[in-house]
């Protein structure tokens, strides 16, 4: 499991890794001590990976301390090791960090609410997740609660068909909370194991749309007190520091249980994960490292850090 994840992530993040390794190798010539300029450059490289100013400063401060107190091996290898350890510690997850994908699920149906800003990859994530669950032998129902965007429902229908999942939908413009409610009812009636609720993309600073999300949540809970069991915020892996604000706002509106980070197969470095973990006590549960169905993977902090820095 772990090694498969590592390979996928490594592959997905290969550009990132190459860039980080190269940058740091260029900054830290073998056999010389790190001076302040070099440390500033390392900080810049971390900022360049979207880790954010505060997180990056924290990391290099720690690096400086360790340089003073321990004998690190010369050159980039030593620096990389320290950086990897730090990032790994920052993104490390507990038990709650794992999204159950097989075996007995804590809830029947196990309700997963998928939220996020426009274009983050919610529908694709819902589709891939549906496939994973059906592959694991689960009966899956998808609720098409994006009743706003043009052709959002047909897009989800195609995914549902690929995954072999049922879909519950309403007309364009229907009340998404009502669709969610009906879908949960249908999922129960059909004895489904999993209900995936795909919602419309919304910017976190739109009050009305965030209220709508709360309503979807309430209507699910009305049917089943435990639902939704998971509320995943889908974050675009290329996003910058605004992701922190998104996370905060969505968490306030819907009590998130974790993140799904998408589009990590590009040149983006996904450093926002580190900043996110530092600010919020919520796990990254899934990451998307490609367009294929299998490219949605459970997140593993240690492997992520390793993929980012290991040579």
């Amino acid at each position: 499991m772990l090694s498969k994840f590592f390979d996928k992530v490594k592959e997905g993040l290969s550009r990132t890794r190459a860039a980080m390794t190269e940058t740091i190798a260029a900054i830290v010539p073998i056999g010389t001590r790190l001076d302040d300029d070099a440390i500033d450059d390392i900080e810049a490289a971390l900022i360049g990976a979207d880790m954010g100013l505060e997180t990056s400063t924290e990391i290099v401060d720690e690096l400086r301390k360790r340089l003073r107190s321990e004998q690190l091996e010369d050159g980039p290898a030593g620096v990389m090791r320290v950086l990897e350890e730090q990032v790994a510690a920052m993104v490390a997850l507990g038990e709650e960090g794992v999204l159950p994908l097989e075996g007995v699920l804590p809830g029947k149906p196990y309700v997963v609410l998928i939220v996020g800003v426009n274009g983050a990859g919610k529908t694709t994530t819902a589709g891939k997740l549906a496939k994973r669950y059906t592959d694991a032998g689960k009966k899956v129902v998808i609720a098409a609660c994006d009743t706003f965007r043009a052709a959002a429902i047909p897009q989800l229908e195609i995914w549902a068909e690929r995954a072999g999942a049922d879909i519950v939908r309403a007309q364009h413009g229907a009340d998404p909370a009502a669709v969610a409610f009906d879908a949960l009812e249908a999922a129960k009636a059909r004895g489904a194991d999993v209900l995936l609720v795909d919602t419309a993309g919304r910017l976190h600073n739109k009050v009305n749309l965030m209220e709508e999300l709360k309503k979807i949540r309430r209507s699910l809970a009305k049917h089943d007190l435990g639902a939704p069991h998971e509320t995943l915020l889908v974050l675009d892996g290329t996003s910058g520091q605004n992701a922190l604000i998104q996370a905060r706002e969505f968490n306030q509106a819907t009590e998130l249980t974790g993140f799904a980070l998408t589009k990590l197969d590009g040149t983006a470095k996904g450093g926002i994960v580190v900043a996110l973990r530092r600010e919020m006590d919520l796990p990254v549960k899934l990451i998307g490292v490609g367009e294929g169905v299998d490219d949605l993977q459970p997140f593993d902090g240690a492997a992520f850090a390793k993929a980012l820095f290991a040579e």
Partner: protein
Amino acid sequence: MFNRLSERFDDIFRSLRGQGRITERNIDETLREVRRSLLEADVNFKVAKGFILRVKEQALGQDVLKSLTPGQQLVKIVHDELVGLLGGSNSPLKLADLPPTVIMLVGLQGCGKTTIAAKLASQFKEKGRPPLLVAADMYRPAAVEQLQTLGTSIEVPVFSQPAGSDPVEICRLGVDEARKTNRSVVILDTAGRLSIDEEMMHELDRILQATSPHEILFVADCMQGQDAVETAGRFYERLAFSGCVLTKFDSDARGGAALSIREVTGQPIKFVGTGEKVGDLEPFHPDRMASRILGMGDILSLVERAEQVIERDKAQEMEEKLRTASFTFEDFLDQLQAVRRMGPLEQLMGMIPGAGKAMKGMQVDEGAFSQVEAIIRSMTRQERVQPKILNGSRRKRIARGSGTSVQDVNQLVKQFQMMQKMMKQMSRSKGGRKKMKMPFAG
């Protein structure tokens, strides 16, 4: 979206105000803060570094103008430099001498290409240039259907081909179709792709060769992080795009990445997408945006929008009324509707100088507008013109009629009276700036 950056600059420059002159030391501290806020705004770290260096050079080499304090001077330098970074002046789309003008949209997945395609088409249509939309995204499920739905809603034809067709061929045929059917603009909506996906990037090369577009617009999400520079750089290397469209501009992202894209590719930002509706597309004005970043507000955009929706005669009439303080509930209703036509209040607030800071954390409740409207509409004509006659039983009736409470009615009447009083004062002390309290916010 630049509001947060403006706020930071507000704080930074406040500490500079009241200092005698720009010295190496105080400027260093300030510029470190400026750099910090640029980085926090996702401006690429290399771009930020260059920016700071340029500002510093200029600031130290310049004599402080007599009319300005050193703080103001630095604001001016930062502002000018920011305008430069953002691209000088607004650059409109280039149109072909011989129609159809071919516009090709490119970008990453989920950046908003399809929405922008529809928005652009709608704008061309309004200007009397009939557009044709071409659905060239054969990869994302239901992408063609999305464009068709949008096309139907704005009554613009959409050219598409059955699933599995070659996108290059679709684009070529689409342009032919536009020529045959006398459309003046063709908008090619291509699939989202990663800049490192060689095969997909090659497809863009081929579309480029097959259609020779007049404009290639790189569509970018303004919430992007540091990688925006890398992505834009790669797309630019490959396609030499002619401009950029920023989407999700109505978010609270600081949008620094957008500044970097501009700096790295040298191509202008031509439009910004400001909402989910088809009409939410605006030309990008670097100078105004720089002012907004510096907390000077974007009064020009506000005025322009007001002009679009308020007829000139009416505005003059209103001014007269304000001056003579013969303002009634009737006028109030008119104004309310005009303001609502200008767009969501949240958007307007961001354009008012200083409002960004003052309104921080305040939720502007659009519903309050509807309530006020309902109350006024439940008044008789006489009551609207002569609010004085509003006694207890009239108020009770109005509350029932508008589905509100008597307290709500009382509050509105009180606010209205305050407004009238303020207007009297204002017309008396002309030019004296009085603090206006928003009558129905909060």
